[in-house]
């Protein structure tokens, strides 16, 4: 964990106070790096929060650093199975806000591709590895695993060594939009 310089620390403190002020009813906390974590309660609230954090004069969270998810195995973060994580960054103030949203398995999450085009591939990655579906996503396909792959490998029930050797007879595509080549068997 890195220690922020005093100037950045002051900026982050200000952002923390402002976020807590805008969202009095939400859980707002700080992580070990003193970064702000904002918990939103629903999908609708997520969209609202993204909009607000982006246009609020004192925040201007205009950059999407990362979208990821984790599995809430010990139940510390509520009853739902997955936690979506959105990492926002302000190019103006050099401060960060992390938005977290708890979702159940197969519960749909709205896409952020209309706000950031970078969200496209990041959401595809989350869909690929965790199986969280995104609503209104323009191109929801697997991005890292082979399209013949079955299952979502970062889920806890997926064993890490469970390989899937594809038989030669299975149709294959060697590039994203290439035609399917039928099996060689």
């Amino acid at each position: 964990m890195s220690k922020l310089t005093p100037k950045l620390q002051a900026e982050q403190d200000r952002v923390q106070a402002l976020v807590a002020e805008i969202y009095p009813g939400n859980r707002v906390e700080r992580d070990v790096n003193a970064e702000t974590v904002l918990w939103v309660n629903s999908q609708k609230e997520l969209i609202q929060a993204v909009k607000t954090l982006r246009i609020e004069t004192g925040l201007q969270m205009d950059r999407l650093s990362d979208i990821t998810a984790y599995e809430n195995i010990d139940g510390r973060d509520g009853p739902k199975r997955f936690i979506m994580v959105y990492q926002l960054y302000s190019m103006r103030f050099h401060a960060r806000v992390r938005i977290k949203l708890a979702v159940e398995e197969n519960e749909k999450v709205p896409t952020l591709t209309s706000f950031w085009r970078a969200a496209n591939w990041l959401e595809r990655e989350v869909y690929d590895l965790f199986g969280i579906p995104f609503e209104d996503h323009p191109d929801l396909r697997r991005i890292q695993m082979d399209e013949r792959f079955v299952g979502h490998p970062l889920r806890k029930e997926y064993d890490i060594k469970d390989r899937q050797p594809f038989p030669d007879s299975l149709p294959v595509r060697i590039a994203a939009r290439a035609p399917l080549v039928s099996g060689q068997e």
Partner: protein
Amino acid sequence: MSKDGNAGFIPTRLDYAVKWAQKNSLWPFTFGTSCCGIEMMSTLSGTYDLARFGAEVVRFSPRQADMLIVAGTITTKMSPVLRQVYDQMLEPKWVIAMGACSSSGGIFDTYSVLQGIDEIMPVDIYVPGCPPIPEGLIHAIMKLQDVVQTGGKRPQMHKLTRAEATDAMSFRKGSQETLFDDSKPLKGQLT
């Protein structure tokens, strides 16, 4: 041949000459996907100078290459691409699996990494090391020259059937269900 144009006696057989030419002009197609690729570049450059063995003409088209050097981790997603490259190479062709990852999967014993490229193509020479030192690759190429010259036994490839593929999955071994069903499309697969 002497200067007056007298060819004299050519004490060689044609196939010997062809093999000699092949072994001294093994043009590599490089498939460097990780740190082994760096060692391979080092082997090709001045200090180790693979040109001494006639193998310095790196071709980035499989049609012009004789030898495929697979240097690095091959994921299951990359494997159809690598297989396509191998299929596009013209006969005669040889394959060197350079390093632990391409020989056996190396330290990456996970769901996404091919456990050795011999799952998808026949391999002539395996080079151990993580990554192998340039001398290792040079030794492999010299061994391959022996293979080319003596016409040693070539590796054979076994095509994986659906039942075998399901059985090969470590944690599904022995279960009767087959994962790949012909009748229904795969989840996430474009049609």
